[in-house]
């Protein structure tokens, strides 16, 4: 139970200097405890939490999921679910929030304290337009007439850097991209002109470049409005650029509190150190001595989706993947990075022929997968296996772990008597570091990490030669991510399986992969050995990606945030002509709009698709 000092002199240049003398905290939580009444008994999610936020300062709250970070602040605002109970004290500007009448609390919500929630898709009302939701809050808290409120709404949307704001006002949340929705949420939270903004995991569901934009926006807003902020996140890099002070929470309690510099560079607690260690960039693994003959060859693979069904509708075509060609040797590992809509998952499925390419060839061990009859293709699947993004969802909830892992054996005609089957399953479970006792458990009884290990065991039991991993750890917590990556690494070393790793997490890919392919809107941008890509990328998009990855360094991160470029990724339905990246590229020329850049050899195993790569060094 730690309590912070009442008066803190911020040491980060990005924040407002506090005036001398004692300043009363804007938000003061004392001994806040949150309990839920469940059929299995009461569950405590927050224990005796005591924190303070001074006016104009940003407090970052970091911790793993389930640490009680969000629940604490939801409780202070009276937003808990029906079976939640709060005790303790939460004072805002001197007023005790927990004992307020609902009407008084409503006056503070929105006007005193604004809140931004984690998943903008589900946090915006689906049947009201953006404009309606914004105007409603403005009229409520600012007491303006409708016309004046509409003008103000437009101003706010422009202020949060939402492009084409007038048109967006008429649209519904499902018509906007993730980044746009989050900006709308921020605009709504700002419309009451609150003195404190609570942002609950505002960037978690977003692409890395959009994350950087939103964080930069929050930092800018804090500066311009001298607004206090609470930034809740599991990502140290996110707090490093915006927060003045940082609190670390674990299992409902505050473990450590201090200035950002102090907590991030010289943490006192072992837990904090452990969490920080999980964010450090990993050293890339050593590339294999030499590459053998390619086992997997893709030539000009393209995947199109038909969009818009129904007789009266035109059928559009969405080009999810265009002109992808690559080779993979036995035992080699290839990483595929890019943002959502970039075509990574489509590529993963095209390789395994889970989604037939519309054009091009996929050749495995000399056999063209696209031309095989279905029975032969199914038989080949013993050599080609996949790990999926949703660990729990990829396991049949009605089957035990043992049945799940044993299923591939039955499919590929390795019929074994029952005892031998169980033994084989047990052996695989050990191989993925799971206790054999789990063999009779059901997926919903396992944690996310355990589920993913089961998925790996299921894939490895038939000793595949190629393993395609589609975002295998993005749904897991930091430390668990590391464990699974280490497991994959070990398996690769031991069995010599080739690996294709699809991920938006550059650090992860650099650790595990020999070479990395960068995709943007389904086109190849750059292909290079992992070390080279991380150190000296040639393509402007790769550089943008690297610059957007948040670093847990309070000295560097604020500056990096200020360099973030605005701009939304274009819709995959209307890709830009010529080089698809040109709309976001700071180096674009006229030529980039008319000519598609060729896939050129840049030496040392590198390939780039850019007209200007020679000049941009």
């Amino acid at each position: 139970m730690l309590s912070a000092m009442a008066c803190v002199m911020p040491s980060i240049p990005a924040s407002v200097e506090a005036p001398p003398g004692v300043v009363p905290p804007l938000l003061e939580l004392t001994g806040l405890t949150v309990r839920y009444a469940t059929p299995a008994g009461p569950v405590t999610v927050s224990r005796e939490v005591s924190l303070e936020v001074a006016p104009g300062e940003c407090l970052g709250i970091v911790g793993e999921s389930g640490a009680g970070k969000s629940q604490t602040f939801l409780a202070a605002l009276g937003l808990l679910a029906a079976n939640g109970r709060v005790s303790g004290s939460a004072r805002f500007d001197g007023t005790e929030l927990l004992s307020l009448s609902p009407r008084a609390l409503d006056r503070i919500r929105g006007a005193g304290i604004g809140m931004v929630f984690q998943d903008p898709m589900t946090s915006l009302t689906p049947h009201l337009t953006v404009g309606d939701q914004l105007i409603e809050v403005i009229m409520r808290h600012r007491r303006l007439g409708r016309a004046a409120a509409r003008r103000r709404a437009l101003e706010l949307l422009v202020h949060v850097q939402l492009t084409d704001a007038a048109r967006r006002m008429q649209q519904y949340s499902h018509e906007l991209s993730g980044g746009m929705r989050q900006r709308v949420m921020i605009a709504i939270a700002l419309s009451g002109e609150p003195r404190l903004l609570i942002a609950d995991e505002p960037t978690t569901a977003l692409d890395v470049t959009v994350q950087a934009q939103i964080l930069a926006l929050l930092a800018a807003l804090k500066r311009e409005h001298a607004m206090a902020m609470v930034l809740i996140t599991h990502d140290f890099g996110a707090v490093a650029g915006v927060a003045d002070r940082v609190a670390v929470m674990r299992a409902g309690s505050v473990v450590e509190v201090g200035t950002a510099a102090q907590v991030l560079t010289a943490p006192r607690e072992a837990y904090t150190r452990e969490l920080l260690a999980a964010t450090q960039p990993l050293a890339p693994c050593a590339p294999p001595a030499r590459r053998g003959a390619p086992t997997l060859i893709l030539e000009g693979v393209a995947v199109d989706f038909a969009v818009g069904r129904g007789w009266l509708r035109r059928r559009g075509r969405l080009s999810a993947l265009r002109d992808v060609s690559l080779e993979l040797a036995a035992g080699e590992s290839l990483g595929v990075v890019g943002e959502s809509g970039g075509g990574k998952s489509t590529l993963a499925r095209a390789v395994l022929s889970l989604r037939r390419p519309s054009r091009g060839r996929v050749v495995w061990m000399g056999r063209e997968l696209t031309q095989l009859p279905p029975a032969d293709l199914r038989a080949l699947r013993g050599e080609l296996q996949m790990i999926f993004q949703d660990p729990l969802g990829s396991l049949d909830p009605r089957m035990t772990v043992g049945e799940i892992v044993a299923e591939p054996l039955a499919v590929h005609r390795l019929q074994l008597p029952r005892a031998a089957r169980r033994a084989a399953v047990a052996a695989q479970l050990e191989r993925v570091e799971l206790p054999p006792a789990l063999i009779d458990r059901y997926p919903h009884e396992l944690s996310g990490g355990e589920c993913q290990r089961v998925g790996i065991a299921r894939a490895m039991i038939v000793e595949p030669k190629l393993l395609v991993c589609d975002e295998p750890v993005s749904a897991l917590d930091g430390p668990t991510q590391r464990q699974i990556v280490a497991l994959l690494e070990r398996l690769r070393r031991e069995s010599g399986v080739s690996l294709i790793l699809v991920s938006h997490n550059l650090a992860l890919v650099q650790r595990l992969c020999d070479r990395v392919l960068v995709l943007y809107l389904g086109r190849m941008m750059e292909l290079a050995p992992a070390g080279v890509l991380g150190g000296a990328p040639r393509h402007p998009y790769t550089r943008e990606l690297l610059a957007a990855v948040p670093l847990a360094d309070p000295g560097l991160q604020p500056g990096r945030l200020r360099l973030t470029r605005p701009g939304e990724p274009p819709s995959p339905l209307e890709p830009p002509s010529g080089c698809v990246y040109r709309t976001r590229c700071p180096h674009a020329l006229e030529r980039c709009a008319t000519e598609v850049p060729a896939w050129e050899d840049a030496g040392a195993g590198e390939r780039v698709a850019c007209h200007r790569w020679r000049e941009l060094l």
Partner: protein
Amino acid sequence: MLSYALRRIAVAVPTLLIIITLSFGIVRLAPGGPFDQEQTLNPAVRANLDRLYGFDRPLLVQYSRYLAALAHGDFGPSLSERDFSVTELISQGLPLSVTLGLAAIFLAILVGIPTGVLAALARGRSPDYLVSALAALGIALPTFVTGPALALFFGLYLGWLPVAGWQPGAPRYLVLPVVTLAIPVAAYLARLMRASLLEVLRAPYVRSARARGLGELRVLWRHALRPALLPVVSYLGPAVAFVVTGSLVIETVFGLPGTGRYLVQGAINRDYPLVMGMIIVYAAFTLTLNLAADLLYGWLDPRARRE
């Protein structure tokens, strides 16, 4: 919204056509003809009758002639009530049946939906339990039991309302029939509304709306109610079908001269034109109300429109 409406209408029209064709097929192809029930006829007389009514022509010709007549609103002559055409028979009874059906639906909506909302808001407390229990009962009781029971109680015992029968211009004769028909629908709507609203109130965007300080009433009215109504609106289609078939029983129990009796009578007497006319009218009614429900759904949920 307009293109969504057009699309929905475009689906409804072929459906009606298919229904017409199907009923034509079933009725025509079933064994036995309208004249088989009576004493065995002299074959010559039989042939004359067949020619008169056009039964000797090939099926396809009969079908196209039927369709052509339909376009003029002519359902053909009734074979059992020789003095009347089907159109006349149906229009005699249709106003009453339609009134019965529509009134029942409106009553059910008027009672069921607010009750469901109240039950959801009073969750876990006694009003909720009361509503849930009553709703369970209302769903389980068949109309041909509640009808006579209500008639017994309010008609015979209390004498407030007439037990059965009909007098034009005297709406009190319709009270018990409408209430009886409305009870199961109201009960189901209440349950559905309650469950749906409870679900919506747990949604993240409702919490988000609360966090904006809009006040609980406004959050409920503007943010929660519309999505909560979606499953209820979806149910309106089946509800209409229920009311349409249920009115048959109600008319029998309460002795109302609507169109229901013509169906049974026509089926028993193999009066093809009558049966087909009934089916088509009822189907058109159902389809129209289904269409209205679909359009309402599209208005409520912007996401449905883009499909």
